[in-house]
Protein backbone atom coordinates (compact mmCIF):
# COMPACT_ATOMS: atom_id res chain seq x y z
CA UNK A 1 0.00 0.00 0.00
CA UNK A 2 1.49 3.39 -0.96
CA UNK A 3 2.25 5.72 1.92
CA UNK A 4 -0.27 8.51 2.35
CA UNK A 5 1.18 11.96 1.78
CA UNK A 6 0.37 15.58 1.11
CA UNK A 7 2.69 17.96 -0.68
CA UNK A 8 2.47 21.75 -0.90
CA UNK A 9 4.84 23.76 -3.08
CA UNK A 10 4.88 27.53 -2.63
CA UNK A 11 1.15 27.49 -1.91
CA UNK A 12 -0.67 30.75 -1.34
CA UNK A 13 -4.26 31.83 -0.96
CA UNK A 14 -5.79 35.27 -1.23
CA UNK A 15 -9.28 36.51 -0.40
CA UNK A 16 -9.73 39.68 -2.39
CA UNK A 17 -6.88 41.93 -1.28
CA UNK A 18 -6.10 39.83 1.79
CA UNK A 19 -3.18 37.42 1.57
CA UNK A 20 -4.20 34.61 3.93
CA UNK A 21 -1.33 32.24 3.09
CA UNK A 22 2.00 32.93 1.42
CA UNK A 23 4.69 30.60 0.07
CA UNK A 24 3.76 27.55 2.11
CA UNK A 25 5.88 24.48 1.30
CA UNK A 26 5.25 21.28 3.24
CA UNK A 27 5.55 17.52 2.94
CA UNK A 28 3.15 15.70 5.22
CA UNK A 29 3.49 11.97 5.91
CA UNK A 30 1.55 9.56 8.15
CA UNK A 31 1.59 10.74 11.72
CA UNK A 32 0.06 13.68 13.54
CA UNK A 33 1.11 17.18 12.63
CA UNK A 34 -0.04 19.99 14.89
CA UNK A 35 -0.79 23.43 13.58
CA UNK A 36 -0.30 26.32 15.97
CA UNK A 37 -0.71 30.02 15.46
CA UNK A 38 -2.70 33.03 16.61
CA UNK A 39 -6.17 33.82 15.29
CA UNK A 40 -5.91 34.97 11.69
CA UNK A 41 -2.56 33.22 11.12
CA UNK A 42 -4.06 31.19 8.27
CA UNK A 43 -4.55 27.85 10.06
CA UNK A 44 -8.15 27.37 8.97
CA UNK A 45 -7.36 28.46 5.43
CA UNK A 46 -4.52 25.94 5.24
CA UNK A 47 -6.75 23.16 6.57
CA UNK A 48 -9.48 24.02 4.07
CA UNK A 49 -6.94 23.79 1.26
CA UNK A 50 -5.81 20.37 2.48
CA UNK A 51 -9.44 19.25 2.77
CA UNK A 52 -10.20 20.28 -0.84
CA UNK A 53 -12.84 22.70 0.43
CA UNK A 54 -10.88 25.57 -1.08
CA UNK A 55 -8.33 25.79 -3.91
CA UNK A 56 -5.02 27.60 -3.60
CA UNK A 57 -4.61 30.77 -5.64
CA UNK A 58 -0.85 30.17 -6.01
CA UNK A 59 1.42 27.15 -5.98
CA UNK A 60 0.81 23.43 -6.22
CA UNK A 61 -1.02 21.10 -3.90
CA UNK A 62 -0.99 17.33 -4.14
CA UNK A 63 -3.00 15.07 -1.82
CA UNK A 64 -2.28 11.33 -1.90
CA UNK A 65 -0.44 11.92 -5.16
CA UNK A 66 -3.58 13.38 -6.74
CA UNK A 67 -4.26 16.86 -8.03
CA UNK A 68 -7.37 18.39 -6.43
CA UNK A 69 -7.70 20.79 -9.37
CA UNK A 70 -8.80 17.85 -11.53
CA UNK A 71 -12.46 17.00 -10.70
CA UNK A 72 -12.05 13.21 -10.96
CA UNK A 73 -8.92 13.27 -8.82
CA UNK A 74 -10.59 15.58 -6.33
CA UNK A 75 -13.40 13.03 -5.96
CA UNK A 76 -10.79 10.28 -5.40
CA UNK A 77 -9.17 12.38 -2.69
CA UNK A 78 -12.53 12.96 -1.03
CA UNK A 79 -13.15 9.22 -0.89
CA UNK A 80 -10.11 8.96 1.39
CA UNK A 81 -10.59 12.14 3.36
CA UNK A 82 -12.07 12.99 6.74
CA UNK A 83 -12.58 16.64 7.56
CA UNK A 84 -13.72 18.35 10.73
CA UNK A 85 -14.34 22.05 10.02
CA UNK A 86 -13.94 24.65 12.73
CA UNK A 87 -17.69 25.08 12.93
CA UNK A 88 -20.23 22.45 12.02
CA UNK A 89 -23.93 23.20 11.98
CA UNK A 90 -26.41 20.40 12.35
CA UNK A 91 -29.73 20.13 10.54
CA UNK A 92 -32.65 20.79 12.87
CA UNK A 93 -34.10 17.79 14.66
CA UNK A 94 -31.24 15.42 13.84
CA UNK A 95 -29.98 12.81 16.28
CA UNK A 96 -26.26 12.01 16.49
CA UNK A 97 -26.83 8.77 14.62
CA UNK A 98 -28.95 10.43 11.91
CA UNK A 99 -26.34 13.11 11.24
CA UNK A 100 -23.38 10.74 10.96
CA UNK A 101 -25.54 8.37 8.90
CA UNK A 102 -26.38 11.25 6.53
CA UNK A 103 -22.70 12.11 6.00
CA UNK A 104 -21.96 8.39 5.55
CA UNK A 105 -24.50 8.35 2.70
CA UNK A 106 -22.69 11.25 1.06
CA UNK A 107 -19.48 9.27 1.52
CA UNK A 108 -21.00 6.50 -0.57
CA UNK A 109 -21.86 4.05 2.19
CA UNK A 110 -24.99 2.85 0.43
CA UNK A 111 -25.41 -0.57 2.09
CA UNK A 112 -27.59 0.05 5.18
CA UNK A 113 -26.15 -2.72 7.40
CA UNK A 114 -22.52 -1.81 6.70
CA UNK A 115 -23.29 1.90 7.02
CA UNK A 116 -25.09 1.55 10.34
CA UNK A 117 -22.28 -0.59 11.67
CA UNK A 118 -19.71 2.03 10.60
CA UNK A 119 -21.75 4.84 12.13
CA UNK A 120 -21.85 2.92 15.41
CA UNK A 121 -18.11 2.29 15.22
CA UNK A 122 -17.22 5.97 14.85
CA UNK A 123 -19.74 7.05 17.48
CA UNK A 124 -18.08 4.50 19.75
CA UNK A 125 -14.63 5.92 18.99
CA UNK A 126 -15.70 9.35 20.21
CA UNK A 127 -17.47 7.95 23.25
CA UNK A 128 -21.03 8.47 22.07
CA UNK A 129 -22.15 4.85 21.71
CA UNK A 130 -25.05 5.33 24.08
CA UNK A 131 -26.13 8.72 22.74
CA UNK A 132 -26.82 7.81 19.11
CA UNK A 133 -30.54 8.37 19.46
CA UNK A 134 -30.17 11.65 21.36
CA UNK A 135 -31.08 14.84 19.52
CA UNK A 136 -28.01 16.94 18.80
CA UNK A 137 -29.82 20.06 19.95
CA UNK A 138 -30.10 18.53 23.43
CA UNK A 139 -26.38 17.74 23.62
CA UNK A 140 -23.63 19.71 25.33
CA UNK A 141 -21.05 21.63 23.29
CA UNK A 142 -18.42 18.95 23.84
CA UNK A 143 -20.80 16.18 22.77
CA UNK A 144 -21.71 18.10 19.60
CA UNK A 145 -18.04 18.50 18.83
CA UNK A 146 -17.61 14.75 19.19
CA UNK A 147 -20.53 14.11 16.82
CA UNK A 148 -18.81 16.35 14.29
CA UNK A 149 -15.56 14.50 14.83
CA UNK A 150 -17.29 11.14 14.38
CA UNK A 151 -18.35 12.04 10.83
CA UNK A 152 -14.72 12.84 9.99
CA UNK A 153 -13.62 9.39 11.17
CA UNK A 154 -16.00 7.51 8.85
CA UNK A 155 -14.20 4.91 6.79
CA UNK A 156 -10.84 5.32 8.58
CA UNK A 157 -9.64 7.94 6.08
CA UNK A 158 -6.06 8.09 4.79
CA UNK A 159 -6.10 11.85 5.33
CA UNK A 160 -7.71 13.36 8.41
CA UNK A 161 -7.96 17.14 8.68
CA UNK A 162 -9.17 18.42 12.04
CA UNK A 163 -9.79 22.05 12.89
CA UNK A 164 -9.78 22.40 16.67
CA UNK A 165 -11.09 18.90 17.40
CA UNK A 166 -10.94 19.15 21.18
CA UNK A 167 -12.71 22.48 21.65
CA UNK A 168 -15.24 22.08 24.45
CA UNK A 169 -14.33 18.44 25.05
CA UNK A 170 -13.77 17.47 28.69
CA UNK A 171 -10.27 16.33 29.82
CA UNK A 172 -11.24 12.68 30.12
CA UNK A 173 -12.62 12.57 26.60
CA UNK A 174 -9.61 14.47 25.29
CA UNK A 175 -7.38 11.69 26.52
CA UNK A 176 -9.60 9.11 24.82
CA UNK A 177 -9.59 11.09 21.58
CA UNK A 178 -5.80 11.36 21.70
CA UNK A 179 -5.60 7.57 21.85
CA UNK A 180 -7.98 7.25 18.89
CA UNK A 181 -6.06 9.79 16.80
CA UNK A 182 -2.71 8.21 17.65
CA UNK A 183 -4.01 4.87 16.39
CA UNK A 184 -5.34 6.39 13.14
CA UNK A 185 -2.06 8.25 12.59
CA UNK A 186 -0.14 4.98 12.30
CA UNK A 187 -1.24 4.81 8.67
CA UNK A 188 -2.95 8.15 7.98
CA UNK A 189 -1.85 11.72 7.59
CA UNK A 190 -3.49 13.60 10.45
CA UNK A 191 -3.28 17.38 10.55
CA UNK A 192 -4.88 19.18 13.43
CA UNK A 193 -5.11 22.79 14.36
CA UNK A 194 -5.58 23.75 17.97
CA UNK A 195 -5.04 26.47 20.51
CA UNK A 196 -4.27 23.80 23.12
CA UNK A 197 -0.49 23.44 23.17
CA UNK A 198 -0.85 20.50 25.57
CA UNK A 199 -2.74 18.59 22.84
CA UNK A 200 0.13 19.21 20.43
CA UNK A 201 2.70 18.25 23.05
CA UNK A 202 0.83 15.05 23.89
CA UNK A 203 -0.06 13.99 20.35
CA UNK A 204 2.15 15.41 17.66
CA UNK A 205 5.60 14.47 16.62
CA UNK A 206 5.72 17.46 14.30
CA UNK A 207 4.46 21.00 14.72
CA UNK A 208 3.97 23.82 12.27
CA UNK A 209 3.68 27.35 13.59
CA UNK A 210 1.91 29.77 11.30
CA UNK A 211 1.96 33.51 11.68
CA UNK A 212 0.45 36.03 9.28
CA UNK A 213 0.04 33.40 6.61
CA UNK A 214 3.66 32.22 6.69
CA UNK A 215 5.29 29.17 8.23
CA UNK A 216 7.38 30.39 11.18
CA UNK A 217 8.46 26.96 12.36
CA UNK A 218 8.20 23.44 10.96
CA UNK A 219 9.85 20.60 12.78
CA UNK A 220 9.74 18.19 15.70
CA UNK A 221 7.93 19.34 18.82
CA UNK A 222 10.96 18.46 20.92
CA UNK A 223 13.21 20.75 18.85
CA UNK A 224 10.83 23.66 19.29
CA UNK A 225 10.72 23.06 23.04
CA UNK A 226 14.50 22.79 23.09
CA UNK A 227 14.77 26.28 21.57
CA UNK A 228 13.24 27.64 24.78
CA UNK A 229 15.69 25.85 27.08
CA UNK A 230 17.29 28.34 29.46
CA UNK A 231 14.81 31.05 28.52
CA UNK A 232 12.08 30.37 31.05
CA UNK A 233 12.34 31.41 34.67
CA UNK A 234 10.26 31.99 37.75
CA UNK A 235 10.26 35.22 39.74
CA UNK A 236 8.21 36.87 42.45
CA UNK A 237 7.36 39.78 40.15
CA UNK A 238 6.83 40.09 36.39
CA UNK A 239 10.25 40.54 34.84
CA UNK A 240 10.54 43.58 32.54
CA UNK A 241 13.24 41.72 30.62
CA UNK A 242 10.77 38.98 29.68
CA UNK A 243 8.88 38.91 26.39
CA UNK A 244 5.88 37.56 28.22
CA UNK A 245 5.14 36.76 31.85
CA UNK A 246 2.12 35.56 33.78
CA UNK A 247 1.12 34.70 37.32
CA UNK A 248 1.00 30.98 38.00
CA UNK A 249 -1.12 29.05 40.48
CA UNK A 250 1.67 29.23 43.09
CA UNK A 251 1.55 33.02 43.07
CA UNK A 252 4.92 33.34 41.34
CA UNK A 253 5.46 34.71 37.83
CA UNK A 254 6.55 32.58 34.92
CA UNK A 255 8.73 34.60 32.55
CA UNK A 256 9.67 33.74 29.00
CA UNK A 257 12.22 35.83 27.18
CA UNK A 258 15.43 35.84 25.18
CA UNK A 259 17.70 36.42 28.22
CA UNK A 260 17.42 35.09 31.75
CA UNK A 261 18.20 37.56 34.52
CA UNK A 262 21.26 36.57 36.58
CA UNK A 263 20.35 34.46 39.57
CA UNK A 264 16.81 33.79 38.37
CA UNK A 265 15.26 30.39 39.00
CA UNK A 266 15.27 28.63 35.64
CA UNK A 267 12.63 26.00 34.88
CA UNK A 268 12.07 23.39 32.19
CA UNK A 269 10.32 24.95 29.20
CA UNK A 270 6.99 23.67 27.93
CA UNK A 271 5.71 23.78 24.36
CA UNK A 272 3.61 26.79 25.32
CA UNK A 273 6.74 28.63 26.48
CA UNK A 274 8.52 27.77 23.24
CA UNK A 275 5.55 28.87 21.16
CA UNK A 276 5.29 32.19 23.01
CA UNK A 277 9.01 32.73 22.67
CA UNK A 278 8.83 32.05 18.94
CA UNK A 279 6.04 34.53 18.53
CA UNK A 280 7.96 37.10 20.54
CA UNK A 281 5.09 37.89 22.89
CA UNK A 282 5.30 41.51 21.81
CA UNK A 283 2.31 43.76 21.21
CA UNK A 284 2.99 43.86 17.46
CA UNK A 285 2.04 40.18 17.42
CA UNK A 286 -1.49 40.88 18.52
CA UNK A 287 -3.87 38.53 16.72
CA UNK A 288 -5.39 39.86 13.55
CA UNK A 289 -8.99 39.30 12.58
CA UNK A 290 -9.69 35.75 11.47
CA UNK A 291 -9.75 35.73 7.69
CA UNK A 292 -13.21 35.00 6.44
CA UNK A 293 -13.55 32.83 3.39
Amino acid at each position, binding site marked *: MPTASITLRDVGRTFGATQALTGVGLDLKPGITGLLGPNGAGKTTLL*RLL*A*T*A*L*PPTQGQLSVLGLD*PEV*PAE*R*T*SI*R*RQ*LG*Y*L*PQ*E*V*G*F*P*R*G*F*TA*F*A*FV*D*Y*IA*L*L*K*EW*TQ*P*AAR*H*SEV*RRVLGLVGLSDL*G*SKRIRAMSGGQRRRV*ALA*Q*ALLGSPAVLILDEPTTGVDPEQRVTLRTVLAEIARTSVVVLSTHQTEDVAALCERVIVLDRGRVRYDGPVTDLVHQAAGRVWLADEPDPEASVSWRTGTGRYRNVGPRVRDGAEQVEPSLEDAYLLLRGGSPDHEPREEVA*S
Partner: protein
Amino acid sequence: MTGWHLGDDILRRYVERTDSLAEGASVEQHLLSCEPCRARVSTAAVGVIDFAAVWDRTRDAVEVPRPSVFERLLRAAGLPAHEARLVAVASAFRSAWLIGVITIFAFAALAAGMGQARGMWLFLAVAPVVPCLVVASSYDPWLDPALEPELVTPYPALRLILLRTIAVLAIALPAVVLFGLIVPDKAPFAFLLPAVGFVAVVLAASTWVSPLRAAVVISSVWLAVVWLLATRSGPPGELLQAWAQAGFTLLAVASFVIFLVRRRWLRQVRPWR
Protein backbone atom coordinates in the same frame (compact mmCIF):
# COMPACT_ATOMS: atom_id res chain seq x y z
CA MET B 1 -38.29 -24.64 42.92
CA THR B 2 -39.32 -28.26 42.53
CA GLY B 3 -35.96 -29.85 41.78
CA TRP B 4 -37.22 -30.61 38.28
CA HIS B 5 -35.38 -29.00 35.37
CA LEU B 6 -36.02 -28.59 31.66
CA GLY B 7 -34.80 -31.45 29.50
CA ASP B 8 -32.31 -30.72 26.71
CA ASP B 9 -34.86 -31.48 23.98
CA ILE B 10 -37.46 -29.16 25.46
CA LEU B 11 -34.86 -26.43 25.91
CA ARG B 12 -33.64 -26.80 22.32
CA ARG B 13 -37.20 -26.60 20.95
CA TYR B 14 -37.80 -23.50 23.08
CA VAL B 15 -34.63 -21.77 21.84
CA GLU B 16 -35.29 -22.72 18.22
CA ARG B 17 -38.95 -21.68 18.65
CA THR B 18 -40.17 -25.02 17.30
CA ASP B 19 -42.16 -25.80 20.46
CA SER B 20 -45.91 -25.63 20.72
CA LEU B 21 -47.67 -22.66 22.25
CA ALA B 22 -48.57 -24.65 25.35
CA GLU B 23 -45.07 -26.06 25.78
CA GLY B 24 -43.51 -22.64 25.30
CA ALA B 25 -45.80 -21.10 27.93
CA SER B 26 -44.97 -23.92 30.33
CA VAL B 27 -41.22 -23.47 29.77
CA GLU B 28 -41.43 -19.73 30.36
CA GLN B 29 -43.40 -20.28 33.54
CA HIS B 30 -40.66 -22.62 34.75
CA LEU B 31 -37.87 -20.25 33.72
CA LEU B 32 -39.36 -17.49 35.82
CA SER B 33 -38.62 -19.43 38.96
CA CYS B 34 -35.57 -21.51 37.98
CA GLU B 35 -32.20 -19.81 37.95
CA PRO B 36 -30.16 -22.82 36.69
CA CYS B 37 -32.50 -23.33 33.70
CA ARG B 38 -32.34 -19.62 32.86
CA ALA B 39 -28.55 -19.95 32.72
CA ARG B 40 -28.89 -22.96 30.40
CA VAL B 41 -31.06 -20.94 27.98
CA SER B 42 -28.21 -18.59 27.09
CA THR B 43 -25.83 -21.53 26.63
CA ALA B 44 -28.32 -23.37 24.44
CA ALA B 45 -28.95 -20.24 22.38
CA VAL B 46 -25.31 -19.95 21.31
CA GLY B 47 -25.08 -21.08 17.71
CA VAL B 48 -28.86 -20.97 17.32
CA ILE B 49 -29.41 -17.27 17.79
CA ASP B 50 -27.13 -14.71 16.15
CA PHE B 51 -26.88 -12.37 19.11
CA ALA B 52 -24.91 -9.77 17.19
CA ALA B 53 -27.64 -9.60 14.55
CA VAL B 54 -30.36 -9.39 17.20
CA TRP B 55 -28.47 -6.60 18.95
CA ASP B 56 -27.98 -4.75 15.66
CA ARG B 57 -31.68 -5.06 14.85
CA THR B 58 -32.56 -3.79 18.31
CA ARG B 59 -30.22 -0.82 17.96
CA ASP B 60 -31.53 -0.13 14.46
CA ALA B 61 -35.04 0.02 15.87
CA VAL B 62 -33.92 2.62 18.40
CA GLU B 63 -31.33 4.63 16.46
CA VAL B 64 -32.05 4.54 12.75
CA PRO B 65 -34.33 7.43 11.87
CA ARG B 66 -37.71 6.41 10.51
CA PRO B 67 -38.32 7.56 6.93
CA SER B 68 -40.52 10.64 6.72
CA VAL B 69 -43.70 10.67 4.64
CA PHE B 70 -41.81 12.62 2.00
CA GLU B 71 -38.99 10.06 1.94
CA ARG B 72 -41.47 7.20 1.59
CA LEU B 73 -43.10 9.03 -1.31
CA LEU B 74 -39.74 9.37 -3.03
CA ARG B 75 -39.05 5.67 -2.55
CA ALA B 76 -42.48 4.83 -3.90
CA ALA B 77 -41.65 6.98 -6.92
CA GLY B 78 -38.69 4.70 -7.61
CA LEU B 79 -35.77 6.56 -6.05
CA PRO B 80 -33.26 4.22 -4.35
CA ALA B 81 -33.54 4.28 -0.55
CA HIS B 82 -30.19 6.00 0.06
CA GLU B 83 -30.89 8.75 -2.47
CA ALA B 84 -34.40 9.24 -1.13
CA ARG B 85 -32.78 9.86 2.26
CA LEU B 86 -30.28 12.33 0.81
CA VAL B 87 -33.07 14.28 -0.84
CA ALA B 88 -35.46 14.15 2.10
CA VAL B 89 -33.03 15.25 4.79
CA ALA B 90 -32.45 18.66 3.17
CA SER B 91 -33.58 21.26 5.63
CA ALA B 92 -35.91 22.72 3.03
CA PHE B 93 -37.92 19.53 2.71
CA ARG B 94 -38.50 19.27 6.40
CA SER B 95 -40.99 22.11 6.18
CA ALA B 96 -40.48 24.45 3.23
CA TRP B 97 -42.24 22.43 0.58
CA LEU B 98 -45.18 21.81 2.88
CA ILE B 99 -45.39 25.52 3.72
CA GLY B 100 -45.16 26.26 0.00
CA VAL B 101 -48.01 23.98 -0.88
CA ILE B 102 -50.13 25.32 1.98
CA THR B 103 -49.38 28.88 0.84
CA ILE B 104 -50.58 28.12 -2.66
CA PHE B 105 -53.66 26.42 -1.31
CA ALA B 106 -54.43 29.45 0.82
CA PHE B 107 -53.96 31.81 -2.12
CA ALA B 108 -56.03 29.55 -4.35
CA ALA B 109 -58.85 29.66 -1.83
CA LEU B 110 -58.49 33.43 -1.50
CA ALA B 111 -58.42 33.82 -5.27
CA ALA B 112 -61.56 31.72 -5.64
CA GLY B 113 -63.27 33.92 -3.10
CA MET B 114 -62.26 37.12 -4.89
CA GLY B 115 -63.94 36.20 -8.14
CA GLN B 116 -62.86 35.57 -11.70
CA ALA B 117 -60.35 38.18 -12.86
CA ARG B 118 -58.81 39.36 -9.59
CA GLY B 119 -58.70 35.82 -8.25
CA MET B 120 -56.88 34.53 -11.28
CA TRP B 121 -54.35 37.34 -11.13
CA LEU B 122 -53.67 36.63 -7.49
CA PHE B 123 -53.20 32.92 -8.10
CA LEU B 124 -50.99 33.51 -11.11
CA ALA B 125 -48.85 35.91 -9.11
CA VAL B 126 -48.16 33.49 -6.28
CA ALA B 127 -48.26 29.95 -7.69
CA PRO B 128 -45.27 30.07 -10.08
CA VAL B 129 -42.88 31.58 -7.56
CA VAL B 130 -43.43 29.06 -4.77
CA PRO B 131 -41.74 26.08 -6.51
CA CYS B 132 -38.68 28.18 -7.36
CA LEU B 133 -38.39 29.45 -3.77
CA VAL B 134 -38.66 25.89 -2.41
CA VAL B 135 -36.09 24.60 -4.91
CA ALA B 136 -33.71 27.44 -3.98
CA SER B 137 -34.10 26.75 -0.28
CA SER B 138 -33.39 23.04 -0.85
CA TYR B 139 -29.77 23.74 -1.75
CA ASP B 140 -28.95 27.22 -0.62
CA PRO B 141 -25.64 27.31 1.29
CA TRP B 142 -27.07 29.83 3.74
CA LEU B 143 -29.82 27.40 4.76
CA ASP B 144 -27.56 24.36 4.93
CA PRO B 145 -25.79 24.31 8.29
CA ALA B 146 -23.75 21.20 7.48
CA LEU B 147 -22.48 22.51 4.17
CA GLU B 148 -18.76 22.26 4.76
CA PRO B 149 -18.61 18.55 5.70
CA GLU B 150 -21.07 17.87 2.85
CA LEU B 151 -18.90 19.79 0.42
CA VAL B 152 -15.86 17.56 0.80
CA THR B 153 -17.66 14.25 0.31
CA PRO B 154 -17.37 12.36 -2.98
CA TYR B 155 -21.11 12.61 -3.69
CA PRO B 156 -21.57 14.89 -6.74
CA ALA B 157 -23.11 18.22 -5.74
CA LEU B 158 -24.75 18.55 -9.15
CA ARG B 159 -26.57 15.25 -8.78
CA LEU B 160 -27.80 16.18 -5.32
CA ILE B 161 -29.09 19.54 -6.53
CA LEU B 162 -30.90 18.04 -9.51
CA LEU B 163 -32.41 15.28 -7.39
CA ARG B 164 -33.72 17.84 -4.91
CA THR B 165 -35.04 20.02 -7.72
CA ILE B 166 -36.87 17.16 -9.38
CA ALA B 167 -38.25 16.06 -6.02
CA VAL B 168 -39.69 19.53 -5.41
CA LEU B 169 -41.26 19.68 -8.85
CA ALA B 170 -42.58 16.12 -8.67
CA ILE B 171 -44.30 16.75 -5.36
CA ALA B 172 -45.21 20.41 -5.50
CA LEU B 173 -46.54 20.79 -9.03
CA PRO B 174 -49.22 18.07 -8.99
CA ALA B 175 -50.33 19.20 -5.54
CA VAL B 176 -50.58 22.79 -6.69
CA VAL B 177 -52.47 21.82 -9.85
CA LEU B 178 -54.93 19.96 -7.68
CA PHE B 179 -55.43 22.91 -5.38
CA GLY B 180 -55.54 25.26 -8.34
CA LEU B 181 -58.58 23.49 -9.71
CA ILE B 182 -60.71 25.44 -7.31
CA VAL B 183 -59.69 28.66 -9.05
CA PRO B 184 -61.98 29.69 -11.87
CA ASP B 185 -61.06 29.37 -15.56
CA LYS B 186 -57.76 28.00 -16.90
CA ALA B 187 -55.45 29.68 -14.43
CA PRO B 188 -54.28 26.53 -12.63
CA PHE B 189 -52.53 25.29 -15.74
CA ALA B 190 -51.27 28.66 -16.91
CA PHE B 191 -48.71 28.90 -14.12
CA LEU B 192 -47.04 25.53 -14.86
CA LEU B 193 -44.65 26.70 -17.57
CA PRO B 194 -43.69 29.90 -15.73
CA ALA B 195 -42.99 27.79 -12.63
CA VAL B 196 -40.73 25.35 -14.51
CA GLY B 197 -39.06 28.28 -16.28
CA PHE B 198 -38.36 30.09 -13.00
CA VAL B 199 -36.91 26.94 -11.42
CA ALA B 200 -34.54 26.63 -14.39
CA VAL B 201 -33.61 30.31 -14.06
CA VAL B 202 -32.80 29.76 -10.37
CA LEU B 203 -30.54 26.83 -11.29
CA ALA B 204 -28.75 28.88 -13.94
CA ALA B 205 -28.48 31.99 -11.76
CA SER B 206 -27.07 29.96 -8.87
CA THR B 207 -23.86 29.62 -10.88
CA TRP B 208 -23.38 33.34 -10.24
CA VAL B 209 -25.24 34.14 -7.02
CA SER B 210 -26.74 32.17 -4.14
CA PRO B 211 -29.88 30.23 -5.11
CA LEU B 212 -32.08 31.97 -2.57
CA ARG B 213 -31.02 35.41 -3.73
CA ALA B 214 -31.75 34.39 -7.32
CA ALA B 215 -35.19 33.08 -6.36
CA VAL B 216 -36.07 36.24 -4.44
CA VAL B 217 -35.06 38.45 -7.38
CA ILE B 218 -37.01 36.32 -9.88
CA SER B 219 -40.07 36.29 -7.64
CA SER B 220 -39.94 40.05 -7.19
CA VAL B 221 -39.66 40.64 -10.93
CA TRP B 222 -42.54 38.27 -11.61
CA LEU B 223 -44.76 39.92 -9.01
CA ALA B 224 -43.99 43.33 -10.52
CA VAL B 225 -44.83 42.08 -14.03
CA VAL B 226 -48.09 40.52 -12.89
CA TRP B 227 -49.01 43.68 -10.99
CA LEU B 228 -48.35 45.82 -14.08
CA LEU B 229 -50.38 43.53 -16.33
CA ALA B 230 -53.20 43.31 -13.79
CA THR B 231 -53.52 47.07 -13.49
CA ARG B 232 -53.40 47.48 -17.28
CA SER B 233 -55.95 44.88 -18.35
CA GLY B 234 -58.81 42.77 -17.04
CA PRO B 235 -58.49 38.99 -17.02
CA PRO B 236 -55.01 37.49 -17.39
CA GLY B 237 -55.63 36.47 -20.99
CA GLU B 238 -52.18 37.50 -22.19
CA LEU B 239 -50.44 34.99 -19.96
CA LEU B 240 -52.64 32.23 -21.27
CA GLN B 241 -51.77 32.96 -24.87
CA ALA B 242 -49.72 30.38 -26.73
CA TRP B 243 -46.92 32.87 -27.46
CA ALA B 244 -46.51 33.66 -23.77
CA GLN B 245 -46.39 29.97 -22.86
CA ALA B 246 -43.87 29.35 -25.65
CA GLY B 247 -41.77 32.15 -24.18
CA PHE B 248 -41.72 30.43 -20.78
CA THR B 249 -40.76 27.14 -22.44
CA LEU B 250 -37.89 28.88 -24.20
CA LEU B 251 -36.83 30.48 -20.92
CA ALA B 252 -36.79 27.07 -19.22
CA VAL B 253 -34.76 25.39 -21.96
CA ALA B 254 -32.26 28.24 -22.29
CA SER B 255 -31.77 28.49 -18.53
CA PHE B 256 -31.26 24.77 -18.16
CA VAL B 257 -28.64 24.79 -20.92
CA ILE B 258 -26.82 27.65 -19.17
CA PHE B 259 -26.98 25.70 -15.91
CA LEU B 260 -25.44 22.60 -17.50
CA VAL B 261 -22.72 24.60 -19.25
CA ARG B 262 -21.80 26.51 -16.09
CA ARG B 263 -22.39 23.70 -13.58
CA ARG B 264 -18.87 23.76 -12.18
CA TRP B 265 -19.49 27.34 -11.05
CA LEU B 266 -22.36 26.33 -8.80
CA ARG B 267 -22.53 28.36 -5.64
CA GLN B 268 -21.95 25.26 -3.46
CA VAL B 269 -18.79 24.21 -5.23
CA ARG B 270 -17.82 27.74 -6.05
CA PRO B 271 -15.03 28.00 -3.47
CA TRP B 272 -13.18 25.48 -5.60
CA ARG B 273 -12.37 27.42 -8.74
